[in-house]
């Protein structure tokens, strides 16, 4: 069953024709080792009439991980590092933990999420056909289409918009669900506090 795997997010290098665009977008993005801010996520899921909206704050530390703290409609935390994915709910005691060192598919998903939030275009370019345009004096928009079968099983299409930071991520899943994440109040300070640093160290 070598070929049967949960998530086959294989990377395939493609020759990007969007060389200039990528260079321009990277020039407009701030080269920040740390970004924090607030998010609003709207998920459209089959079986639900209205989008599922959640709000909270996040921290993206380059080379370390992402902390995703949902505040509404219920409190929960998601910690995504190079080594693992763990989620915990404030009440009810629900929690789960996944080790990604043994499952490269999970590691690949983590890497993708990092790249999307950080606007890491050169990483994204390895797995997507990148198209798009510069918007106004500081903005840009990118259209990503998966180039490998593994990723195409999960995503049909991803759209990124931003300026010095990524401001919006829109993901269309192959199975029909979709989600839009909007970012706000983005800043490069303060550095991680003790609790945050501990979570990132996991």
């Amino acid at each position, binding site marked *: 069953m070598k070929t049967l795997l949960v998530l086959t*997010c294989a990377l395939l290098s493609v020759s990007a024709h969007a060389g200039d665009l990528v260079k321009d977008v990277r020039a407009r993005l701030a080269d920040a080792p740390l970004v924090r801010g607030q998010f609003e996520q709207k998920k459209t899921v*089959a079986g639900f009439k209205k989008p599922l909206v959640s709000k909270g704050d996040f921290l993206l530390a380059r080379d370390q991980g992402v902390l995703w703290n949902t505040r509404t*409609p219920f409190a929960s935390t998601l910690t995504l590092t190079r080594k693992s994915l763990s989620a915990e709910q404030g009440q009810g005691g*629900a929690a789960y933990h996944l080790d990604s060192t043994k499952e490269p598919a999970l590691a690949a998903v983590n890497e993708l*999420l990092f790249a999307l939030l950080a606007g890491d275009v050169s990483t994204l370019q390895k797995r997507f056909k990148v198209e798009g345009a510069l918007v106004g004096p500081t903005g840009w928009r990118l259209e990503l289409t998966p180039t490998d079968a593994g990723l195409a099983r999960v995503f049909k299409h991803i759209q990124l918009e931003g300026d010095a930071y990524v401001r919006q991520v829109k993901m269309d899943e192959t199975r029909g669900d979709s989600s839009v994440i909007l970012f706000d109040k983005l800043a490069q300070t303060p550095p991680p506090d003790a609790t945050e640093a501990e979570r990132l160290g996991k």
Partner: protein
Amino acid sequence: MANKLAILWALVVLAVGVHQVSFWRSARLDTDVLALLPEDEQAPEVDAATRKLADEAGRQVVLLVGAQDWASAQKVADEATRVLEQASDVLEPAVVDTSALEQAVDFYRPYRDRLLTPSQRQWLTRATPEELGGTALMKLYQPAGARMTDWNADPLGLWPDWWQARAAETSARPRDGRLWLSGEGREWVLLTWKSKVSAFALGDGSRVTSVVEQARARVEATVPGARLVAAGVPLYAEAAAAQASWEMSTIGFGSLAAVLLLVWLTFRSLRPILLVGVSLTLGCAVALTVTALVFDRVHLLTLVFGSSLVGVAEDYGFHYFAARQGKAPSERGPVMRSLLPGMALALVTSVVAYLALGVAPFPGLRQMAVFSAAGLTAAFLTVVCWFPSLDRGALPVTAFSERFSASITRWPRITSTRGWWLTGAVLTVLVAVGLWKLKPQDDLRQLQGAPPNLIADQRELGRLLGLPSPAQFFLVEGDSDEQVLAREATLKQHLDTLVSEKVFAGYRAVSDWLPSQAQQREDAALSARAEAQAVAAVSESTGEAPTRATFAEEPLTPSHFLSGPVASAIRQQWLGTLGARQYSVLMLRGLNDPKQLPKLEAVAHGLEGIRWVDKTAEISGLLGRYRRIMGGLIVAGYVAVLLTLVARFGRQAWRAWLPSVLGTLITLALFGWSGAPLQLFTVLGLVLLLGMGVDYGIFLLEHPGDGSAWLAVALAGVSTLLSFGLLGLSATPALRSFGLAMLLGEVTIWILTPCFRLPPGKATH
């Protein structure tokens, strides 16, 4: 009468010739060591399991290419692939079907609710409604949570874990469009190729092996410290074929050249060379034909062993020419008649000894026995039926043979003197100590002649990939599919404890992919209850009314599963119906420590319908049992031979008998002194020795004081020595030990026999 026999034999030879042509056109030769192993008459289902597991590999060549880091590993994998691609007439990439995952996921989708891992089962049983609801909500709201099915068909996100558990059957994972694994200090890329050339073709060169070696060289040259590990049946088959053809030509042509040289030295005439050559060729051809007719396929090792036949089958021709030398051509008939009783007796003892090898239930040995017995008989018949008619001219005595024949009178002869008694006493002590030092060994490895680097690669590959062992497994039995699957589940519960104690890494069972129907119903009920609670919690939190998807009404049945896309990977473990019972095999991964085997054996004890099969131990046990049985047979054989000899030679019989007994004991003592182990195949060599060693004594007693008999015995001894000595060069430990026993025994008997000859002027009858 003699002419009729000659014509009859000519007809047989003609038929054999026709068969030979058709045989070599489509050589059905066997290289698989398993084919040499005995069948288990008591447990045909164990046999069926072993063979089914062995057939699986077929033409596959599996390679792991590794380097210190992932980037270098990918680079060297590309280099290796380039080399393999160039050899497109030899190898082709095994097609990895990229749609296999989708097909499998689609196949299982209607049954998602009844496919749970043991830890999920546990969690669902004890989780509170709050915990279930919380987990469902978290997974629902998680960003970029990629699911394998719609949310309402798996609200708790259980399915990916089930697939993860299935994927754990191999340590290879997709990474960057390749199959990746990490282990033993390196990152590896897995490459799977298939051989396009026929599994065995004698003299075709080792084509797959040489391509793999080129790839290995390229890998090692590209990145320092990079490695290539390769394994596969084609590599073993090629190694076996190359080895066998080398050994066959060394042993066969080596002894043939020696025999013909001896004939030339002794007779200085072309006719004896031609006729002896004819008798040997016919001996080998008939041997092969009879073997091919009796057995379905001829094993390569039979041919290797059979090449030593040359050194034995020449005896009859030697005897004839030694006796006929210097006599008028008109005396051919009487010479043959006077030789016939001794030659027939010698043939019978040798054939009986060869056939005795076939007592052990090893198909390989039986082939060797039939091959040799048929070959000897054919050589004998050729000499008896054809030689008197074909050998028409004069054959003068040569100086060499005259001098050699006379040497018998100068050979030491044992008499009742103090010196000889003393020698005897010293020899007795040395032999006794040697025998006491003798260590038996019944390791299965004596059958394995594969080059050590292939075996090392195979082991490393198995370890890295976590491949299940084909030699140790559990055989599950039941009177229905359902019972077999349920018993597997019970067994797995016991094994899980051992897995958590790290006794072995894991297992592969059909019930992982096809749970018993009872289990499916139970799990479906469990997930239905838990997911209803989860959906309710999500409804409450979102204010919407999502509904849980519906699943197949009937459980997944064995017949549906076996026709599905996943079955091919596990089908070899599903033995189906044998007799009136159902069987399956549960395989173990990461079982590297033989000391842990008793723990596994113990698991099977308390469980009904579960049998622990340890093929390695079983065969070693069998080798040991037959070593003892054949040992007993030798003792009985010597008694029987003594009685036969007494019937013909009366009180002088011991003179032919004792040298062989002493030869056997001295050989064993030499094994003891040198530290060489006593194996079944050593003992088998001694069985053969019993049949051949006595021949020399018989000839010397039949023709006392006749220098020509001594000449024939000497020639026969030297050529037999040579061919078995050459067999001692074989890379297969079993054949080597066999050859060595024969060699040592023959030398000793050859030296001793004339020492026990009759005093001059005496005759037995």
